């Protein structure tokens, strides 16, 4: 029997690490991975609440699990398009450091 707040705490820690990575890191790909980490933390929160609501007897409880699918789909689409953009940027700028991709003109 694990309290619900433990799951939310874990989800919050993952989300906070994702935000930290997004702000601190300089490599574009690592920034994208921090975004994925944030989405994963949120997924855990969805499923934990779905379990809690199901235990409380709510009829709409399982929607939490289903919503995780939509989050995963959006994350997949965003990862695909984002990585394609990274490849396109890399072809012209020859660098993956976001500090050097700060001018519209080369």
């Amino acid at each position, binding site marked *: *029997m*694990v*309290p*619900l707040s*433990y*799951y939310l*705490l874990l989800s*919050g*820690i*993952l989300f*906070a*690490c*994702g*935000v*930290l*990575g997004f*702000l*601190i*890191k*300089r*490599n574009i*790909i*690592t920034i994208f*991975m921090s975004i*994925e*980490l944030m989405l*994963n933390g949120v*997924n*855990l929160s969805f*499923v*934990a609440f779905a*379990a*809690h609501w199901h*235990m409380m007897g709510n009829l709409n*409880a399982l*929607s939490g*699990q*289903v919503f*995780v*699918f*939509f989050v*995963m*789909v*959006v*994350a*997949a*689409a*965003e*990862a*695909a*398009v984002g990585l*394609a*953009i*990274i*490849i396109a940027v*890399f*072809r012209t700028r*020859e*660098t*993956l450091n976001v500090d050097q991709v700060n001018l519209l003109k080369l």
Partner: protein
Amino acid sequence: MLHLILFLFFGTLCVAGAINLLAQSHPINSALSLIVVMASLAAEYLLLGAEFVAAVQVIVYAGAIMVLFIFVIMLLNAGQEERTKGSRIAILFGIPGVLIGAVLTAWTLLHHASALAVPIGVLPGGPHEVARLLFHEFLLPFEITSVLILIAIMGAVVLASRPEAVAKRHDDEQPRTMPELVGAGKEH
């Protein structure tokens, strides 16, 4: 008791993977730590009873999206070792942000701990239940996300294609002149 031990074990793996993602300088190590995070999250979903979500997490997230990330890291091969310069704004907002987040989570933990306990495997997370919801109540979002994936595929293909390939197609469409034929025609 077993539930708590398993939750703490996989939770520690998650947090260790997340912190390792921040601490490593080579992006391939960060990618591998993220795979560890996703696998331990799948175990956490299993502990909550959402087995279908756990399987899909392993297949889609850890088995396809992270492979995509690793492909790009291997292909570009330019993020050898990143030199972090340390942005001042990030430190200015980041460290107080982390402290506020830590205080909030500690308050949540102490205040609400023993009230709501979730037993092990409580969700009916089998494929039948998820499918019943996905194809009845959530049918419209399901169809819209399939269109979204189609758009993402087309966008990724267009964005990642080489500009020379596009230019070559334009070259092929222009008429080719053959000088010797023109010369022969002029002589006639």
